[in-house]
């Protein structure tokens, strides 16, 4: 994308009365392959291209976006954004102010060793068919085995009336396999490596090769088959050890979302919800046990929440959200950072050219501890190990949650025992994190990509990252509901 249409849009916005404007174009190519029970269910190639213009007029926001990119269209969008911002003034209570940000001129590119488009599609199809076959061989009741792969390349150009000019190129690769076993009114699912698109990384095809998809698929099918005849997860209060895929979701829902400062300030109240972490609690509220350190880091190589600059041009950074169990920080935009009396830590992101940026997670991670999964299990007399995201729900302030995992194992007297199906657990966020008494070390720390975080109206589906090691939680209510 040439900068010219963006510059024209900014000039037009200023001329029409904007005090600030930014323009962001996005060019995206993607290729997706899905093989189901050995047959290609979908082979798809996508392309999109568009421009969004955001303006401040009399302290009010306006945004317009379109896919027909030309200098004339860029100017039309800028004029429309100004008209929309003026209309916003009809219900004005305050004027938006922005915390300062550097006017950076830079380029950034995510790591990519093997260009996914350089790998023949037929070779990818063969790998997926092999993975399907292996998963189906996992059991006679595996009715559906699906293997999938996707590559996305984005080139994003950002310019602002403050002088920022930033071009960022990102390559995103994902792959995985899912086995569904069905029998006698029961259905069980296992996924590899994880539930959401397998796993997703800002990387090239080397990420797929590292997964060893075909070799891992048989076990995925075997576990789905075994779950059909497994005992139902018991109900009661006991110790829970979460694997990294499940814990990534727990971090996402119970730490990532409530630390979004726009939720705290109420601007998601009617849709995504608010937060139990108002600004009065900053630096004085115990979120979890002393072991719990949670941070946002948009610089982790390969993370789905990694970038050079966010969609306001704020540089990527690391910042703590929870330190030694205390709540210490938020995810911020320039507007909310100003209102808090600080500067942004770069969490403004838009899901596409057609969306206004809002505060989103970057890579929200749990710092590793000093245990191992083995030592966590050895220190548990009565509990359940759960992993594989299956079901999730949490209240609008992010307190009462209930999650379900694909697979569970009972823990008795310090050892893993029988497999259990439909494991669920529920709790209240600060009580749950307060009960954390063990976190495995850096050797078991896994970076997960979550490609489907929904927030905002119109809905924005965002890619975010979560890194964690397995962790243990005491006195958790498991096995919710009637089965």
């Amino acid at each position, binding site marked *: 994308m040439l900068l010219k249409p963006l510059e024209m849009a900014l000039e037009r916005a200023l001329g029409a009365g904007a005090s600030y404007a930014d323009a962001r174009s996005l060019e995206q190519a993607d290729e997706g392959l899905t093989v189901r029970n050995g*047959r*290609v269910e979908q*082979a*798809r*190639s996508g*392309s*999109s291209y*568009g421009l969004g213009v955001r303006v401040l007029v009399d302290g009010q*926001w*306006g*945004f*317009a*976006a*379109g*896919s*027909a990119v030309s200098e004339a269209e860029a100017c039309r969008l800028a004029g*429309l954004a100004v*008209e*929309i911002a003026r*209309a*916003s*003034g*009809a*219900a004005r*209570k*305050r004027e938006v102010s922005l915390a300062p940000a550097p006017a950076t001129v830079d380029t950034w590119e995510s790591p990519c060793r093997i260009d996914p488009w350089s790998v023949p*599609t037929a070779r990818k*199809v063969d790998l997926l*068919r092999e993975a399907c076959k292996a998963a189906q061989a996992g059991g006679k009741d595996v009715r*559906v085995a699906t293997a999938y792969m996707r590559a996305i390349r984005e080139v994003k150009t950002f310019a602002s009336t403050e002088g920022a000019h930033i071009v960022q190129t990102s390559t995103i690769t994902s792959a995985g396999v899912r086995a*569904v076993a*069905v*029998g006698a009114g029961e*259905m069980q699912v296992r996924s590899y490596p994880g539930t959401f698109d397998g796993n997703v990384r800002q990387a090239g095809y080397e990420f797929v090769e590292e997964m060893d998809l075909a070799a891992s698929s048989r076990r995925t099918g075997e576990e789905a088959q075994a779950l059909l005849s497994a005992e139902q997860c018991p109900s009661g209060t006991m110790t829970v050890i979460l694997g990294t895929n499940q814990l990534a979701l727990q971090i996402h829902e119970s730490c990532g979302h409530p630390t979004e400062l726009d939720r*705290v*300030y*109420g*601007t998601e*109240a*009617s*849709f995504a919800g608010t937060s*139990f972490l*108002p600004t009065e609690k900053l630096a004085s509220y115990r979120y979890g046990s002393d072991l719990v350190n949670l941070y946002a880091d948009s610089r982790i190589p390969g993370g789905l929440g990694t970038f050079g600059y966010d969609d306001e041009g704020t540089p990527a950074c690391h910042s703590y959200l929870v330190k030694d169990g205390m709540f210490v920080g938020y995810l911020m935009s320039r507007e909310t950072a100003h209102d808090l009396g600080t500067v942004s830590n770069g969490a403004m992101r838009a899901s596409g050219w057609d*969306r*206004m940026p*809002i505060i989103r997670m970057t890579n929200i991670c749990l710092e590793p501890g000093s245990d191992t999964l083995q030592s966590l299990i050895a220190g548990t007399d009565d509990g359940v190990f759960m992993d594989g995201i299956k*079901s999730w*729900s*949490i*209240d*609008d*302030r992010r307190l*009462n949650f209930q999650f379900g995992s694909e697979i569970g194992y009972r823990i008795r007297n310090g050892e893993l025992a029988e497999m259990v199906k439909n494991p*669920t657990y529920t709790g209240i966020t600060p009580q749950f994190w307060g009960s954390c008494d063990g976190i495995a070390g850096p050797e078991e720390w896994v970076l997960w990509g979550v490609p489907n975080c929904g927030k905002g*109206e*119109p*809905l924005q589906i965002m890619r975010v990252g979560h890194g964690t090691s397995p962790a243990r939680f005491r006195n958790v209510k498991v096995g*919710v*509901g*009637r089965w």
Partner: protein
Amino acid sequence: MVGKDRALSVCEAAISACGADAAEAVLMLETDSLTRFANSEIHQNTTVDSAELLVRAVLGTREGWASANQITGDAVREAAARAVQMARVQPENPEAPGLADPAEYEEAEGYDEQTHDFTPAQRAQAVSRIIRQADAHELNASGSLRTRAMEVAVANSRGVRAWARGTDASLITVVMTGFESDAGSGYAEAASRRVGDLDFEALGATAVRKCLAARHPGDVEPGEYVVVMEPSAVATALQMLAYMGMNGISFIEGRSYASGRLGTQITSEMVTIADDWHDPDTSPLPFDFEGVPRQRVTLIDRGIASGMIYDRTAAARANAQSTGHAVPGGGMPGGYPQHLAMSAGDSSIEEMVAGTERGIYITRFNYANPVHPVKTIFTGMTKDGTFLIEDGKIGRPLRNLRFTDSILGGLFASITAISRDTGLLPTGNGMSIYRVPAVRARLQITGSTV
């Protein structure tokens, strides 16, 4: 919006450019305008014009898909070439159903000029009518007003030529006393294909009234309760049911509530659920995204599993006919219902409450998700107006409650009353609105927020 001739000519150009054994093109155009308000002021105000061209190229039994969001000649040709390339690199697929045959479509007019032309200033005025009511009580209003105009064209090399346009408008509002744990909140929502049908004053009044009544909520013990659920809550349950099992391929593979149970009683005989695009108040669309005429399908008839929806892929596997429920781009093989309606009953919300000795009144559900699709178990929270019902009257407000229950085996199986009046509720999807009543049933409450 480009009109029927231009939209179909873009599709025809894509089909021609494929030079494949067969080809299909779908063009979707949308202008999506949304005014979002929070803390009783507008904080996001957007208009987005978008286009999506989906091309399916068929070589023998191999199918390749490509998409583009530009409709210039070069972009169309380039998308066609990519679709052919994606078809070329895969093995033959004997299960591929091929493309639809030409068909006659029923007339439908889902387009409303006023909705299409609704300006940012008009949206701001409408929103201000809600904010003013909240201001009068020193309450905090948030929500969104959305208007959309959409155009869909479907064509294929076998002669299918389908085109429709539509509009929809929806408003949701949450009015709150604050964000703390004992705050009160109230909710109202409505949808129509005509923005003129939305009564902003009444919606604001409903949310304010409910918010004032919901201040300082208390607790209730977990357990099974009689519940009176407003249409918003029923719509969420219906949406979950659709997601968990109203899909032809899930049905064939034993993953749907209806698998192996057609013709059997699966829930209360008071429950009839159909997918019917003919409702003139929703957003009618007479064909699906394969160009197949959309049929009315009764999925549950007086409690008996009576039907299933299919796209062409599912229909071929089930040795059945497509019911015209394909989604764009083969995104959800098996199909999805866009116009669900639950049949009305003969009661009213007031009568349901009056007939309840002890129970819970639920305005809506929040963050509901499936727990076990075959058993139709779902979980979620109540929100924005949960009250205890005592001695036939709405009593003290309750904190948001967690429920975990089976939709068919628990909630819908225990229905004892359904309202005469129904509400039109937005689903968030284009040209898709549900019509649902209020119900009285039983629901398993498994927890509460704090």
